[in-house]
């Protein structure tokens, strides 16, 4: 049975239109800062500041840390729940939905109350401690997406058989996780990583209230109450984040992959 590719092209083009046209409108507006002509002034206004690079690299580093910590927390938990303790699944799934419902501002005030100078774990006292707190806050924000992505990935592979086979061959749990399970869920892990990075780059409220120099804070400072700069910022942020994800995708090519034949 020959399959035509037209339907796929039609769907793709319609989808591309829906997603690209609003971006085009934003770009068009951002270029209109000067009367009557198109100019890049809004962009130069935004990029000129030295803080642009500083805050962006800061957010990238925090994002990378959040991805790693997130994976470390989510993958073993999703694995063991799937393998051994399916009765915990409803509870864990509900917990992972909480960050979507609780407004980030309530979260950050909660963390400040719990981890301020006079608590057992005074994270807010030092810059490094606050950075750690910020990273963990981002892990919390990205948890729903990370968990759902990893869970979908695990559901797709036959975890039980893989584990048994690896055990028979003498692997311990850590080896199983690292060398058997992880490579088979690379696609899911990538999805989770993308979603985490996107959240970290754009996040503003938590970073601002914790007084950390994040990219979102910089964007807000530059763009608030201006007409054209916010549009330029949105475009820049979009393009840079897309680039960062492209890099992650490239790096993932070097990771060991599953041998499952897919269509």
């Amino acid at each position: 049975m020959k399959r035509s590719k037209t339907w796929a092209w039609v769907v793709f083009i319609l989808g591309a239109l829906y997603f690209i046209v609003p971006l085009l409108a934003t770009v068009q507006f951002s270029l209109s800062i000067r009367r009557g002509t198109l100019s890049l002034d809004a962009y130069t206004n935004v990029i000129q500041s030295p803080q642009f690079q500083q805050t962006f690299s800061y957010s990238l580093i925090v994002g990378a840390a959040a991805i790693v910590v997130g994976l470390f927390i989510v993958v073993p938990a999703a694995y063991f729940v799937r393998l051994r303790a399916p009765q915990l699944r409803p509870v864990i799934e509900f917990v992972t939905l909480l960050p979507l419902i609780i407004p980030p501002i309530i979260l950050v005030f909660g963390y400040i109350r719990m981890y301020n100078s006079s608590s057992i774990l005074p994270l807010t006292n030092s810059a490094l401690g606050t950075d750690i707190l910020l990273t963990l806050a981002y892990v919390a924000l990205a948890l729903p997406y990370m968990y759902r992505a990893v869970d979908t990935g695990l559901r797709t592979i036959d975890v039980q058989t893989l584990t048994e086979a690896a055990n028979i061959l003498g692997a311990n749990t850590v080896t199983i996780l690292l060398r058997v399970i992880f490579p088979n869920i690379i696609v899911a892990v990538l999805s989770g990583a993308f979603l985490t990075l996107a959240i970290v780059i754009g996040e503003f409220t938590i970073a601002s209230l914790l007084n950390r120099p994040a990219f979102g804070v910089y964007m807000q400072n530059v763009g608030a109450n201006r007409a054209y700069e916010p549009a330029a910022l949105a475009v820049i942020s979009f393009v840079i984040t897309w680039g960062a994800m492209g890099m992650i995708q490239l790096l993932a090519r070097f990771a060991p992959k599953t041998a499952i034949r897919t269509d």
Partner: protein
Amino acid sequence: MNLKSALAASVSVLAVLGSTVSTFAATDLAALYDAAKAEGQLTVIALPHDWCGYGAVIDAFKAKYPGITVNELNPDAGSGDEIEAIKANKGNTGPQAPDVIDVGLSFGPSSKADGLIQAYKVSTWDSIPDSAKDADGFWYGDYYGVMSFLVNKDLVANSPTSWADLKKPEYANQFALAGDPRAANQAISAVHAAGLSTGAKPGADAGTAGLNFLAELNKAGNFVPVIGKAAPLAQGTTPIVAAWDYNALAWKDGFAGNPKAEVVVPSDAVVAGVYIQAISAYAPHPNAAKLWMEYLYSDEGQIGWLAGYCHPIRFNDLAAKNAIPADLLAKLPDPALYAKAVFPTLDEQAAAKDAITKNWDSVVGANVQ
């Protein structure tokens, strides 16, 4: 000596001490600066750089008093956020705890009652009008502005000159508020002003009248429920926005002619809104906070706000002393308009806010189907 002369002596001693204390306060600035430098930091919150020229004010403060880092938390915060930040940071001495807050008038008495702010009377205390400060020194008005319209002249040929004008059919799909009238001070004040323009008394009456006015605008199709800011105004979704005059003027400056814009103070109702300053009771850097207050209420600080188009609370005092540069005065709207500005009292504000926030949805609610 007997009791009477002892009493007389102690009273005279006290009098002498009293006078030295007041002169003490003036020269204290140097000591205050040293103490603030020892603390090394000042944490502020909710101060966007474009609001009343705070960006320039903070820079000037840093230039005048080197050695003090200024941590700027969440410039996007509303007054409620600032109060919440004080509460959440109660045990925290890190740079996340705000030292000073700049909030709406109604938050003054409530934060004092909740024990969230501490008293401090700046050296220019007496020149602050009594109606705009707490007698015990817990909170004090900092600046005010009046409700005005910012009009995108590229899209609107004839600017509306009054609230009544807005009902004209030529303004279809053009008028917007600068915030959510269920939460934002600016939007609520705009509705209040609309009510006052119909002749109602300030307070709950004007609140309800304002709601009815906006309901009419909505039914006529003139009201756009999008929150009006610089970007939507320039883009064309909200060509007429009701905002504080200092915001309108700052946004207009930001446009730099593209689009052409005009700031209009409506002729039928001029409503003023006052914001207040206070020092957090849990401020980790109290001396830096006091130094900041001294700076804000000095002539230099007050004029810094004026450069951001806000009328500083000591405006009349400064004008009497001829301390205001003429070019700054020229940039502001006609002083005659401010002469007839209505300053709603705390109670009137609270009553209007109650009426507006509770009934907005039922009276005006563009009821999404």
